[in-house]
């Protein structure tokens, strides 16, 4: 049996989790909610994170548009994903939820805008 102590990152509570792995199954204790149980399992089997960053945008009322991966992606893909994000360039206008990069770094997860950026005539 293997046991791991984790801090849940699902919400600000930061519950201390204990994940037991036995006979191919996992049990999570210490969680205050269902999301915590799910996080505990995932974290020991294949940890994932949501990545947030910014993408350069042309012709808008902001020069950067904040973005995030629509869902969590495998932890070991974070830097591959960042590489694509850092290279990306989009044009205004952009609305919240617009896909900025489809299937980022082969994760199958798209990167979407998290702010509206309006088009300006002269930027």
């Amino acid at each position, binding site marked *: 049996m293997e046991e791991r102590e984790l801090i849940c990152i699902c919400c600000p509570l930061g519950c201390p989790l204990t994940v037991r792995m036995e006979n191919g199954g996992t049990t999570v204790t210490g969680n205050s909610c269902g999301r915590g149980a799910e996080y505990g399992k995932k974290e020991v089997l294949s940890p994932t994170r949501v990545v947030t960053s*910014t993408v*350069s945008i042309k012709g808008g009322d902001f020069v*950067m548009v904040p973005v995030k991966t629509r869902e969590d992606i495998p932890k070991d893909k974070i830097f591959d994903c960042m590489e694509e994000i*850092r290279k990306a360039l989009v044009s205004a206008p952009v609305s919240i939820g617009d896909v900025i990069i489809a299937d980022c770094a082969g994760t199958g997860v798209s990167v979407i805008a998290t702010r509206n950026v309006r088009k300006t005539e002269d930027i």
Partner: protein
Amino acid sequence: MSLLFFSMIPENRETITDLEENNMKEMNYDTAIIGGGVIGCAIARELSRYDLKICVSEREEDVCSGTSKSNSAIVHAGYDAVPGSLKARFNTEGNRMMRELSKALDFSFIRNGSMVICFSEKDIPALNALYEKGVKNGVPDLSILTGDEVRTMEPNVTETAVAALYAPTGGIVCPFGLTIALAENACDNGVEFLFEMEVKDIRKTEHGYDLISEDKVIHTSYVINAAGVYADEFHNMVSEKKLRITPRKGDYCLLDKEAGTLVSHTIFQLPGKMGKGILVTPTVHGNLLTGPTASDVEDKEATGTTAKELSDIMVKSAWGVKNIPFRHTITSFSGLRAHEDGEDFVVGEVPDAAGFFDAAGMESPGLTSAPAVGVYLAELIAQKANAKKKEHFQETRKGIVNPQKLSFEQRAEMINKDPSYGTIICRCEGVSEGEIVDAITRTLGAVSLDGIKRRVRAGMGRCQAGFCTPKTMELLARETGKKIEDICKNRTGSNLLTGKR
């Protein structure tokens, strides 16, 4: 006068070959001043009354970048210096000149008066001696106050104060304001400022001196050495009578304006068995300043504060003034006094180097003395060069308008005419876009964030440029056409950013 030297051809062939090979830019002046601190700028301004071709060579990107920016900002009354010394003479004269100069050149100066606090009956004789010294130096209106009198005038002075020397002529000044005003006025009167020019060598020539930097050579008849802590090095290049300047470091703590009314006078401590003591003073901008420590250092660039000295300030300042709210400290800084072994200013023509003038060892009261030293040296050189006064000397200079000092209607009108005065960039000090643009675009305009800060106080307030840095950088880039990555805090290499996405 100038014409003569325009046509001057250096006769030293070797030098010419050197210059050609190195592709050096050659420049000709009648007088070259090394150092754009308050002393150099004061001399430049006074010398610009005369029909001379003058330059100021400054190694930094702006004037007021060395000791002139990091000091107590005090206009000393003049009781401190040894009677008969140059310090005594120029201090008293400089103090007397300051009010009128502040009006002519539009910088902040307040005669708030100073007190030297005595903590022990045993030290009263020393206090009286200071009084006598002041009288000898010609300091007007000095008096000795009892401890109770002191506390009536300054309720936050400690109970341990038994007496004080009171000098109503003591004052406070904006050291940036003073230096920049002198420089701008000099520039308006034709003085050229050569920034980021570090003089590496000085060679005697037939008609004067060559000042040599990495890429320039200045041919000049007269040299004025106002190089602060480096003045000994330049002096020693031309004279056998060596000077030795030791940088005497002083750390300071600057407190929020919230603490600015703790005292209204400048409060010194009478040097006693506990050491020299620490001063506590309001600044002309309404902050509270306390310091300086004193430690001799070897490195002339050692402007870092140390934990020991910062804690010394907190301990010792409390001897004289109670309830100093150090949690309201917004910044601490350090300055280097140019202390010469001879203990006095070294001002005048170097005996074994004709045409080379020193303004060296200009430690405290250097700031106070600057205007008087400027007049003295300018007259000396003008006489020697047989230079005539200009017909159209511009006596006055107008500073950047501070909208906060205008009436509501005037300020509203100002924004009406130019809306950029309505956009506040530095919220702590209330500085608008228009003022920052003024600081960049006027005579000898700012080229760095520190330059802007010293001209209009953007970034000088309680958040210490946390909020306004991004915007000020952008304004500086916009107005100077520089790339944002090239914007510097001060000298070359102090870039704020390391790249752009």
